[in-house]
């Protein structure tokens, strides 16, 4: 186990290094660097000479490439992401402020994804080509192909504008009611963004669960379990699903970048003050330190999540440890 852990951690080092390098390259798309010599991107958003000068100083853009790289690595190692161009506050502070809103949104989305995808996938995979399998396949396929911003607009139109059941956007009403009503108010505001963030990964994950269960149920140990007199339900959940679970655990880590991508769109539509909106606003206002800091955070968080998922899989499945 220890050997497996060490090996897995060692393999993550080059990836971590790669993430830092890629963000470094991203920085060179920013103005004051060769890639942007052609001029400012969007019309009307010309970067001022002062900002350019600041970029040069902050990232040492007037130094030779290797020196710049060493500087960058040094700053990253000290968790020093610089100051936001917009309000002069440390990038890490701005990220910390936006983090809870995004965690609430994505945590709930992840919870509902798993809570729905597993039963749907097991039920569909339990009887392949059965009526439930066919019906759920069509629905999941439709959800999978539905652009999130369109789904968001339709839900807003139907549930907020036409029926008036849910708030159009925002985190809470203004003024926010206190006590238990305040909580209900918050949940009401969460409903639509969480739905929008959930349905895509739900479709993706339920199909994987189904495929895993279909594959596992045709194997000998499931037949044996049924022959021993276990009920279909027991054979399915205790034997087929447990074995189908393993590859899924390793895939969990990869849900994170998808959720963060979704957050950018969902948080923008629903005026949600999280990381996704911070990233998008920073892109528009050319707040490079924030953009780079968030990119770095997104990459490292995903790496950590895949690492945790791999280790979890090894704890559950001794075979994986021995292979390594």
């Amino acid at each position, binding site marked *: 186990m220890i050997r497996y852990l060490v090996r897995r951690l060692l393999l993550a080092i080059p990836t971590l290094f790669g993430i830092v390098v890629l963000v470094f390259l991203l920085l060179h798309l920013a103005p004051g660097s060769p890639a942007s010599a052609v001029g400012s991107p969007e019309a009307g958003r010309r970067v001022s000479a002062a900002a350019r000068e600041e970029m040069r100083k902050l990232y040492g853009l007037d130094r030779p490439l290797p020196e710049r790289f060493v500087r960058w690595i040094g700053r990253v190692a000290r968790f020093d992401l610089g100051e936001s161009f917009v309000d002069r506050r440390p990038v890490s502070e701005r990220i910390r402020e936006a983090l809870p809103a995004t965690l609430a949104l994505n945590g709930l989305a992840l919870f509902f994804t798993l809570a729905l995808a597993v039963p749907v996938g097991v039920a569909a995979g339990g009887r392949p080509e059965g009526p439930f399998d066919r019906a759920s396949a069509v629905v999941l396929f439709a959800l999978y192909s539905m652009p999130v*911003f369109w789904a968001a607009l339709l839900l807003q139109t139907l549930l907020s504008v036409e029926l008036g059941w849910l708030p*159009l956007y925002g985190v809470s009403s203004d003024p926010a009611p206190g006590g238990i009503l305040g909580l209900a108010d918050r949940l009401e505001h969460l409903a639509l963004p969480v739905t929008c963030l959930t349905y895509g990964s739900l479709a993706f994950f339920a199909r994987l669960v189904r495929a895993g269960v279909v594959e596992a149920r045709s194997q000998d140990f499931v037949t044996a379990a049924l022959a021993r007199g276990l009920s279909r339900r027991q054979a399915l959940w205790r034997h087929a699903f447990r074995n189908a679970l393993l590859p899924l655990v390793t895939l969990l880590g990869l849900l994170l970048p998808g959720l963060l991508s979704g957050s950018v769109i969902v948080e923008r539509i629903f005026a949600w003050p999280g990381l996704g909106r911070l990233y*998008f606003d920073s892109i528009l206002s050319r707040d490079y330190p924030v953009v780079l800091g968030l990119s770095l955070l997104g990459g490292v968080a995903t790496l950590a999540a895949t690492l945790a998922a791999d280790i979890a899989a090894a704890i559950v499945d001794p075979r994986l440890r021995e292979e390594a």
Partner: protein
Amino acid sequence: MIRRLSGSGRVALVVVALLWLVAAVSPLFAERASEIRLDERLRPPSLAHPFGTDDLGRDLAARVVTATPISLAIGLVAAAVSLLVGFGIGAAAGYFGGATDLLLSRLIEVVLCFPVLFLLLALAAFLPPSPATVVLAIGLTTWPSDARYARAEILKARNLDYSRAARAAGAGPARILLRHLLPNALPPLLVSAAFGVSWAILAEAALSFLGVGLPAPASSWGGILSAAPAYIEEAWWLALFPGLALFATVSAYNLLAESLRHATTEAGRT
């Protein structure tokens, strides 16, 4: 290939063909799509304007039709860029193995670690706005999945008899890859390409919706949709119809990809 497609796959193929047909005749509607009538703004769907009118009084149906070739073409070209980069890197990793594989696989892993939209937005917003930027940004962020696919296929095929025979006959890596391995990996790559197109269309729509996609005069479905949030309380048709076109297109390509996958795996490769 087409004969092996399932019923739904054929339907998808017909829908894709129809979409390209719409794209082909769309220039006929260009004039109507750009006609601004401020006295007709935000009219609900009617016989004269089947999809209603937008905030400048332009006919929404004509606008959706004229956006078709833009969305389709960007999707196709971006997917091609992604496939080209992905196949090159994935095939090299699978074929050469060893240190090359280790290095290229790390590269794939690194790019996969980033939220796609983060990279996409940064590339699209920081580079000068043009269709080429959009295409490159999408292609350069989505290639890792193609690369993984290509790597697995080449890894499977490189030790089969025919490629060993080619090697024994003195063929170099480039020749073996392009003349022997590529044709055999083509069906699964086609699946990857079809998924890639639907992905690229979605990505372009997302960029344009967020306002960092194609520059002003051109408008894709995502671009038309970007006006919808401002009028969400009065003009539902602004959101419904362009999104419906997008949804139909993405579904058709996904369905096509799915049945291609069935046709190439279950029916057995010959």
